[in-house]
């Protein structure tokens, strides 16, 4: 809402320094978006053109002498309409016009010019008189040497408020006046309107068959002349950000801005009956609106009809056929109350949001229906020469009583945590112009209808606190003690983040919305997709299942910026019909660590990734895990380099190399990825830390070199060693692998390091020999493994 300060001064006695008002609005009401002059030009004067001659050197220029009261200026003027005897707007040397255009002393074709005679366009207010061409000629009554902006009523400042949805009362100047008066503790001056009417029978009738039109007032005004509005009215509208059109339209808009009640004027002679019926539209009905558009109507649309066909879309837009034209002489003025929800639905569907519809959909004040119509009628008489044809026709079922809300002082104090006194509350209620009855500490408050959306005591608390001042409310901390903590799942997230960050990975957060194709790539669950009905665009119309497509996009993005060594991880959700799953996903590509001048380099590969994940599992005490060749690797994965991860025999996810085709498609280097089910991981994560005794007796190491079939998996050997080694075997690891021409082509040699330990005593070397013998025999029997 743009608030004209000149207009507001009609309601309250404002301090000329508007900063106080601005601060009051910011801290007690609505955020101020700006406080600016309507025309921000200093130093304009009214000038009188004494002489006007053709420039000797230029056909289109005039040499004028202009009396500006304290001096006579010679000014060169290019406007065709300049003439002696005119009163004009003069920018003297030094004045700065919009666009940072500074008027300077100049010589134009050899003749000196000391200023400029201005057009409205040059002042940035073309819409004040769109017909004007050339310089603007002021009226005879303009006083030479005075401020022309004042003469034109354009010497105004505008306070722009960002309104919240709960304050439709501030969509009217009267409402703003009440709020300003209340905040600044000033008296409010309200207005009264009167006019003469012709004593004659009014034959016009109005009806409705729907409760969605609660009231309808219609006043017929005859003998009007459509013409431009006077300058004060145009200036007011411009301050409010509304373009002046003609007196009929301008009066409706002006009164709407005054009282928040939208009005509509029909050309009376174009209405084909003497009856208005407000009803819901019928299926298949159409209307051509003011903007010339043919609109298909739905049953929830409210329409104004002439008894047969729609002549206006109620509260949203007038009809083309009954529009007021320059030759209109008789109007029907409408002031009505339409159901907010109906108006909102229609204006949203047709994408027709107007000053009127936005007021109707927030609920207008039923007590302004008559007042607004009377004010507009008065203005039609005064500004359009209209004659009022008898009484208005109407029906009105609106609730005009105030809303009664009870609140006790104790309630106010218990909600705010502040101790208000009875007299403080009374003083604020008086400033709000809310009537009330006091019974002990109980206030029975009558909230006037100009304040809609009052439902309970909380609304009263809000009013009292904002006027009293939030800065005067104390600061305390809730008294009820509670215990704060993170759940196991929340803590684990942090542990995992720390782990990957400490292992040189970068955490990413990516969008959940992806393309339809990306949504199901790397999907480990079901192929159902969750699709957005009203997406922003095709790139983001489906919710992802896996995080990997997003991570690969990030990889691509960074690689194309010459970053080759990339290690990413993310914790985030995948979305399916009816459930969401949290994933721990990541990827690695390029050199992980290096000391190049020493020839040392650790490059991303399967075993590096596997090791990182294994260390994480050990850290999380999830040592009962298995990593097996993937039984059914995803089509985007390398079938020979992908493994499944099981913890406590439950499938958790997979790790492996991307399919070379996928790498080629994306144009990326060799990339290793993993995606683990975080929900399951968190479920299995049960760190149960009880001290285990540290072994007292030394351990013994033995190395074994075995020859086995080439396609035998290492895990199979380890499993059998563990089986045969029983309790004494503490650890087994592989320290060498050989396949080549020194052994048979279908064999490989594998070297194991075994650690044996007895917690009860020191192992004798003969005992160790026995155990090793047992293991070897078992390996030979089960795996045909021979000692090398």
């Amino acid at each position: 809402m743009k608030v004209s300060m000149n207009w507001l001064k009609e309601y309250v006695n404002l301090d000329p320094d508007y900063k106080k008002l601005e601060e009051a609005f910011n801290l007690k009401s609505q955020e101020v978006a700006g406080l600016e002059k309507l025309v921000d030009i200093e130093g304009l004067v009214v000038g009188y053109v004494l002489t006007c001659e053709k420039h000797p050197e230029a056909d289109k220029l005039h040499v004028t002498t202009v009396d500006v009261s304290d001096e006579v200026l010679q000014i060169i003027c290019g406007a065709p309409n300049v003439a002696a005897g005119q009163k004009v707007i003069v920018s003297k040397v030094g004045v700065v016009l919009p666009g940072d255009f500074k008027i300077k002393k100049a010589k134009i074709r050899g003749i000196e010019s000391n200023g400029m005679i201005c057009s409205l366009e040059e002042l940035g207010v073309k819409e004040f008189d769109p017909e004007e061409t050339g310089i603007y000629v002021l009226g005879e009554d303009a006083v030479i040497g005075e401020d022309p902006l004042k003469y034109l009523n354009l010497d105004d400042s505008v306070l722009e408020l960002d309104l919240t949805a709960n304050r439709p009362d501030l969509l009217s100047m009267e409402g703003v006046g009440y709020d300003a008066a209340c905040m600044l503790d000033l008296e409010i001056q309200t207005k009264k309107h009167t006019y003469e009417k012709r004593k004659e029978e009014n034959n016009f009738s109005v009806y409705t068959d729907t409760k969605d039109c609660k009231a309808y007032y219609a006043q017929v005004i005859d003998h009007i002349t459509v013409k431009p509005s006077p300058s004060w009215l145009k200036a007011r509208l411009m301050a409010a950000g509304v373009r002046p059109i003609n007196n009929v339209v301008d009066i409706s808009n002006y009164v709407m801005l005054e009282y928040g009640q939208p009005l509509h004027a029909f050309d009376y002679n174009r209405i084909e009956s003497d009856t208005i019926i407000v009803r819901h539209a019928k299926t298949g009905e159409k209307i051509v609106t003011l903007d010339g558009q043919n609109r298909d109507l739905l049953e929830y649309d409210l329409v104004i009809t002439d008894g047969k066909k729609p002549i206006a879309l109620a509260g949203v837009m007038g009809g083309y056929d009954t529009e007021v034209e320059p030759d209109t002489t008789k109007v029907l003025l409408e002031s009505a109350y339409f159901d907010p929800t109906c108006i909102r639905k229609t204006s949203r569907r047709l994408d027709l949001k107007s000053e009127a519809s936005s007021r109707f959909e927030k609920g207008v004040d039923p007590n302004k229906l008559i007042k607004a119509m009377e004010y507009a009628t008065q203005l039609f008489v005064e500004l359009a020469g209209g004659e009022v044809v008898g009484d208005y026709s109407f029906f009105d079922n609106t609730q005009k009583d105030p809303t009664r809300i009870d609140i006790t002082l104790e309630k106010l104090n218990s909600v705010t945590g502040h101790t208000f006194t009875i007299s403080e509350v009374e003083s604020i209620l008086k400033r709000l112009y809310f009537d009330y009855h006091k019974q002990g500490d109980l206030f029975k408050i009558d909230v006037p209808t100009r304040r809609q959306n009052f439902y309970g005591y909380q609304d009263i608390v809000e009013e009292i606190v904002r006027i009293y001042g939030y800065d005067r409310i104390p600061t305390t901390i809730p008294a009820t003690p509670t215990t704060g903590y993170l759940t196991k799942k929340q803590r684990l997230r942090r542990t995992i983040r720390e782990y990957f960050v400490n292992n040189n990975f970068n955490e990413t957060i990516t969008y959940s919305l992806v393309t339809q194709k990306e949504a199901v790539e790397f999907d480990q669950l079901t192929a159902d997709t969750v699709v957005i009905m009203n997406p922003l665009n095709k790139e983001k119309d489906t919710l992802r299942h896996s995080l990997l497509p997003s991570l690969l996009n990030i990889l691509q993005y960074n690689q194309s910026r010459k970053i080759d060594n990339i290690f990413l991880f993310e914790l985030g959700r995948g979305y399916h019909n009816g459930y969401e799953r949290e994933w721990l996903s990541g990827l690695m590509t390029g050199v992980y660590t290096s000391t190049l001048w020493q020839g040392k380099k650790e490059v991303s590969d399967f075993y590096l990734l596997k090791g990182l994940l294994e260390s994480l599992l050990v850290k999380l005490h999830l040592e009962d895990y298995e990593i097996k060749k993937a039984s059914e690797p995803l089509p985007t994965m390398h079938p020979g380099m992908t493994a499944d991860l099981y913890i406590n025999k439950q499938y958790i996810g997979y790790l492996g190399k991307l399919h070379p085709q996928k790498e080629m498609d994306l144009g990326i280097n060799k990339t290793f990825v993993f995606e683990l089910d975080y929900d399951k991981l968190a479920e299995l994560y049960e760190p149960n830390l009880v001290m285990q005794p540290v072994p007292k007796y030394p351990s013994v190491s033995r190395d074994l070199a075995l020859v086995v079939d080439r396609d035998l998996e290492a895990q199979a050997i380890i499993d059998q060693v563990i089986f045969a080694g029983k309790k004494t075997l503490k650890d087994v690891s592989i320290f060498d692998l050989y396949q080549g021409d020194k052994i048979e082509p279908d064999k490989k040699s594998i070297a194991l390091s075994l650690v044996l330990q007895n917690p009860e005593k020191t192992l004798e070397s003969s005992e160790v020999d026995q155990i090793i013998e047992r293991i070897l025999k078992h390996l030979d029997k089960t795996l045909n493994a021979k000692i090398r």
Partner: protein
Amino acid sequence: MEQKLKGLVEELEAKLSQVKNANDLNLLKAEYLGKKSVFNDLMKQLKDIPNEEKPLMGKLINEAKQQIAAKLDDAKMEMDRKLVEEKLKSEAIDVTLPGKSSNVGSKHLLSQVIEEVEDIFVGLGYTVKEGPEVESDKYNFEMLNLPKDHPARDMQDSLYISEETLLRTHTSPVQVRSLLENTNQEPMKIICPGKVYRKDDDDQTHSHQFTQVEGLVVDANATLADLKGTLLFVAQKLFGEERKIRLRPSYFPFTEPSVEVDVSCYKCGGSGCSMCGYTGWIEILGAGMVNNNVLRDAGYDPDKFQGFALGMGIERIAILKYGVDDIRAFYTNDLRFNKQFRGK
């Protein structure tokens, strides 16, 4: 005799100066102190001299022997020292050659800010609640005093999956769910961090996906003053202990009264600068007292319970604290951006 002993010591000194290695030194040691050394001969000659001179001579011989032994020891020590010195010299490295290099790991800036906010609230006795991002219209709007066709729904353009489901536009539905789960209606202090979505085109200041943390306190006597105190504490923890806060009226359907919360500018201290638009204040979050309709819909008697709620955008906090100039940077994951926030 005395002369001879003196000569021996001088002779040794001369020989020591010729010694090149440990072997030379060992030979020298055998020559002077071994079984066949010159001292053995001298001791044998001792029996030929008069008895009264024997003690003196014996003493002189022993002194010479000790002197020689000491010199040999010194020479040995000196030689060892030189050896160590040479070894150290040969082992010296160029410490300016590069060390092992690896990628710099980093936690995402949004994760860092979420963790920071979580820690502040956990310290105040809050627990952290999570909920689905695909939400029902009922939990996202209707139970938050935002019935269908409510004008305030214009404030939040949403991404719908069907008429009744959408991507949550705030984390408030988690608060609703938490109220409903709290069947014993115990005093509750929770925060709900998470991803939220709006139908906004991505640009420098808008993102269709962003992160919120909302807080909710419901018990018999949580007051507006408690809200104010909580907000002050949080603002000071996030932006510095000297910060002040300012509450301004606002409107959210789920709170009444509703406020916007400004923190005094941490750059200029409140005197006004470009950071704060020369107002001295920076808007950081929205808050208010829980609307009775929300309590009632969740089965709480508004005569017995009251509470407050607050909500902040994590991106906004990160933008303010770290001078990030484009909200899209959080989601682009340009590693040159992400890695800047590695150490915190």
